[in-house]
């Protein structure tokens, strides 16, 4: 539905008060100031950003409680943001600053200088059973591994190797919650949400597998 007046005044009004490009730049700057204020005053429920890694650009989301989501590059940012809005709160905004602490810890981890993460985690995307499984998983030391059966047993479900596998596959915070450290009992790699090549890469990085 277009505005009705087609005389000179109508056309000038529609053209807007300023050169569009300068205006778009000004709106973009105002948006950055807004995002910094939202961050400073903690007005959003979820903040997201991206982090470089040997796997490419990871997408990450934090809440006031901690890191809630880490996504591999092929999970696109819009898809992750939609999911966060649906499952946590529609008050999701982009972080105006790099997610510095996460970036530093991941850098250190990928260069072999860090064996565990000290980031606080927000577990709210993880259901009760998955939480037992992933809590056990988080306790597997750097450089070693466990099996689906063992993890299931430790989570109180001795016959639930498959269920444990599903919970691990749906881990919303891979790498940091080290679901890559759970393998088949016979020594097979099993599965990995981010693809088996990455699982092998991480296990070799940690020295759990021969390169």
């Amino acid at each position, binding site marked *: *539905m*277009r*505005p009705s*007046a087609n*005389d*000179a*005044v*109508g056309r*000038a*009004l*529609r*053209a*807007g*008060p*300023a*050169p569009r490009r*300068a*205006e*778009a730049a*000004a*709106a*973009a700057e*105002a*948006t950055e*100031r*807004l995002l910094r*204020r*939202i961050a400073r005053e903690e*007005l*959003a429920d979820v903040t*997201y950003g991206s982090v470089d890694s040997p796997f490419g650009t990871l997408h990450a989301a934090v809440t006031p409680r901690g890191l809630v989501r880490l996504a591999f590059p092929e999970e696109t940012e*819009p898809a992750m*943001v*939609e999911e*966060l*809005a*649906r499952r946590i*709160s*529609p*008050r*999701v*905004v*982009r972080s105006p600053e790099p997610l510095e602490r996460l970036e530093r810890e991941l850098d250190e981890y990928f260069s072999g200088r860090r064996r565990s993460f000290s980031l606080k985690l927000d577990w709210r995307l993880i259901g009760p059973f998955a939480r037992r499984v992933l809590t056990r998983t988080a306790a597997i030391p750097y450089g070693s591994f466990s099996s689906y059966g063992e993890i299931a047993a430790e989570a109180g479900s001795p016959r639930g190797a498959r269920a444990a596998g599903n919970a691990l596959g749906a881990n919303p915070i891979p790498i940091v919650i080290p679901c890559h450290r759970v393998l088949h009992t016979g020594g097979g790699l099993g599965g990995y949400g981010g693809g088996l090549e990455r699982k092998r890469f991480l296990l070799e990085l940690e020295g759990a597998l021969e390169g």
Partner: protein
Amino acid sequence: MSESNPPFQVFLDQNRDAVWRFLVSSVGPSEADDCFQETFVSALRAYPRLRPGSNLRAWVLTIAHRKALDCHRGRARRALPVAGVEALDTRSPYAQADTAQPADAELWGAVRELPPRQRSAVVLRFLADLAHREIAAAIGCSEDAARRSLHEGLQKLRAQVAA
């Protein structure tokens, strides 16, 4: 949940230019930033309670309209000294840079001089492409009153620019 409202960032990306244009036209570039911040902070606070499938563009321009009114009231209270600011506004790079239309600064100066309801009706219609019904919702009046405000505003602008 398929018709739920988009994530706030998506909403912000989709509406920031329209809100910015509306505010620059309503209060001038130097006050637009404050109003812009206030508009989206209010929107963020209310966002989770918003009905799914709402007309988000009309909703956020409603908020912007109110913030612009607050800004005008504040300016009126501050009285005389701001006359200078007002004059500066129309000479800012924004108002002036469009050399293709030399009357641009004059026209937008005239828009800012319109009574608030007429100004909002004109700006919402031409810059934000809202229908009469949406303009009415945004400024809180009947559709007829919105149509009338728009008409009167345009008449005044035509007279002023022709003069």
